[in-house]
């Protein structure tokens, strides 16, 4: 009964996650354009990004055509995503903890993928794991190594970050209870996962549970430790969209849509600017005409 409930709540959790994340994305991507506020270096400035330059370095820049390097932007993105370069360059101690935490989470995501692949292999390719098949052997050991390493790194980093926040008076002052809750809710599945691992040393139960999710088969018997781990994981996944753990989305917008957004308006934004400058100003200071449009305020002077 409990395991059936777990299967059902897994789907619900996934739906909440997808809906929540989609809403977040939609909310940020439908915000009005903002005034340009880029910050150099801008990594897509071809041939200039290395020293932080941009297209405004050329006289009559509008007549020269703009050279944008997608690869340059991708390189910087990967350096930040995979190595957290900005913390590495400025604060090695924080980096050691933050990197361990994030790398642990990345590896756990890969572990999820491997469990899913394992479940598909069992359910649809009818290859049991473990078995003598090289693919099954690969999945068995890759899941084991990546899952184990990810969990250990995630716990070390997460506990380290939490401890840092608790013992440093400045960080303690800035950290609010939702911040602690975020860290704790990430740590709970990681720590309970470590306990559950002792009951499921080759992740066979995890794969069987995944088989039950991707096929019509019944949910296997799960020991209480594994059930607790699944529940904590579901709570986290459903909770993520409502918190700043979604900074992977925020970060896309802060970099790509603000700090690296140096696209000049050569006419393509005229309509949108027209709509926005038609909005009526709600401000009350005496030098502003309250209720008059941006355009009316600007053309009329103060």
């Amino acid at each position, binding site marked *: 009964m409990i395991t059936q409930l777990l299967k059902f709540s897994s789907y619900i959790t996934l739906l909440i996650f997808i809906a929540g994340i989609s809403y977040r994305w939609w909310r940020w991507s439908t915000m009005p354009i903002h005034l340009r506020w880029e910050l150099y270096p801008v990594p897509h400035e071809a041939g200039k990004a290395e020293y932080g330059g941009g297209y405004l370095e050329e006289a009559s820049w509008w007549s020269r055509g703009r050279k944008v390097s997608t690869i340059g932007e991708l390189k910087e993105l990967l350096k930040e995503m995979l190595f957290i370069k900005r913390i590495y*360059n400025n604060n090695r101690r924080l980096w050691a903890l933050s990197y361990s935490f994030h790398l642990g989470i990345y590896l756990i995501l890969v572990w999820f993928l491997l469990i899913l692949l394992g479940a598909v292999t069992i359910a649809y390719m009818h290859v049991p794991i473990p078995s003598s098949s090289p693919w099954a052997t690969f999945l068995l050991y890759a899941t084991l190594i990546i899952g184990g390493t990810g969990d250990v790194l995630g716990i070390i980093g997460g506990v380290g970050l939490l401890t840092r926040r608790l013992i440093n008076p400045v960080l303690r002052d*800035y950290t609010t209870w939702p911040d602690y809750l975020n860290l704790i809710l990430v740590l709970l599945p990681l720590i309970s996962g470590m306990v559950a691992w002792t009951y499921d040393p080759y992740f066979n139960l995890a794969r069987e549970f995944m088989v039950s999710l991707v096929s019509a088969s019944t949910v296997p018997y799960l020991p209480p430790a594994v059930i607790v781990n699944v529940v904590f994981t579901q709570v986290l996944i459903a909770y993520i969209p409502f918190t700043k753990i979604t900074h992977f989305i925020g970060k896309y917008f802060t970099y790509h849509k603000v700090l690296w957004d140096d696209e000049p308006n050569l006419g393509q934004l005229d309509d949108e600017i027209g709509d926005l400058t038609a909005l009526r100003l709600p401000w009350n200071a005496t030098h502003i005409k309250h209720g008059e449009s941006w355009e009316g305020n600007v053309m009329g002077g103060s």
Partner: protein
Amino acid sequence: MRKGDIVRIRDMGKPSDQLIKLTINDLMPLPPPYDKPGMEPPMTGPKSDWVKSYVTELDGYVAIDVPWKPRNRDEEEQLVKRFLEGLRKLTSKEGNWTFLQPLLLSLDYCAKCQNCAEACPIYMASGRKDIYRPTYRAEVLRRIYNKYIAKKPGPGIELNAYTILRLGELAYRCTLCRRCVQVCPLGIDNGLIAHEIRKLFSEELGIAPTAIHEKGTVLQLKSGSSTGMSPKAFMNMVKFMEDLIYEKLGRRIKIPVDEKGADILLIHNAGEYISWPENPAAYAIIFEEAGLSWTLSSELLGYDAVNYGVWYDDVQLSRIVMRHVEVARKLEVKRIVIGECGHATKALLVVADRLLKGGDRVPRESVLPILRDIVKSGKLNLDPSRNNFPVTLHDPCNIVRLAGIVEPQREVLRAVAPLFREMEPHGVYNYCCGGGSGFAIMTSLNFPEWRIKVASRMKLKQILEAFKDTMDPKIPKYVCAPCSNCKGELRDLLTHYRATELYNIHYGGLAELVVNAMVDLKEPYIDFTLQ
């Protein structure tokens, strides 16, 4: 970090005297020869009667020099109410489409890891005072926003008149250099948050330092220039520059003014004409030698590129942008070129780009790439050995970190200044001069003491280190700052520390060095005698 006492976020609302009191011993030590005691004047406290009208409860310094303190309970409640009303508008599309997305991203996603603190020259120069952390004012605003506007769960913050008074002052303890953003793994913009707090105060409460509002944008829109210079006074300056050029060059140049249909409308910061006329005069010589089609304008606002709106008020920013564009359209020029002025460059080239549409989209650019192209073209007969003194380059934040114009000025210096050496760090990672975001022109009450000793301290350190092998007072040294506001700040900095008098350290623009290297010059263009 320290284990001792810290100034906490909640202390902003404490009904008490100053949150911190700065002394010289607290501040970041300066390198030789300023490492000995007695090399700089001590710090002073606010006058006792200021507390009635001005906010001395932050650090004892006053940036907002208009009396805005509530006098009774009713006025305090009104202040809180109006502030919240402003915050609601600041986080709405109608009130703030101009910066809504960047602001909300920064309010939502900060991890408060404090990685940014060590990148901030003010926090570092203050001896790491908590209230100057880039995150401090941001966290105060975030907690108010989360509690009262977004209604998010969290610890909240006590919102009383003290919180608001201190927050208003604290918005003017950041030069908006945005160096903190460069090191943030999440791209959080604490500089922008300071900018947005200033906007709330200006656009809703009508509160801003006199120098940037009443005697800044308001005066500029009314009289043509924030210097108060009238078109007639401007024409007198043109005449003065023509005489200056004759004296230095030995021949007369007619500076074009209001030439309809010229290729370039060159707009300088009008402060140049008053304080450093040799800079616009140098451009007149260079442009004439290079045979460019160009003109100055004597129209209101056409002779003053400044746009203080970019520091505190989007409406004032937009008004000045439109007036600059109108001048260019009336003159039927092909492009607007902004002289050596950082904030004017960023305001008109970068920030204004999404305010202009249709025929108002007049092409706009910085003078630095044009100067680089002229120097490299060989049209000027240059002898770099005439600049046989050490030169270092200050990078104006608004031109370099915030507009990506990094190399043109360096290419010029490599061509005309053989003893050019970089300061460290340089380029997009250089530090602000300390006068950014309006500080250089804010001269009321005791604010100059704070900006010179704290905000500019890192710049002095960089300059002294760049010249450490040539500190001999017999050797003149030149800090090149291609920005009017930076020059204003350097002037005050070098004067305060008597660095020109004691160590022969001078400052100036870029074009002056180019003209100084011109072979057919009768007299040296740069004068190293003490002013």
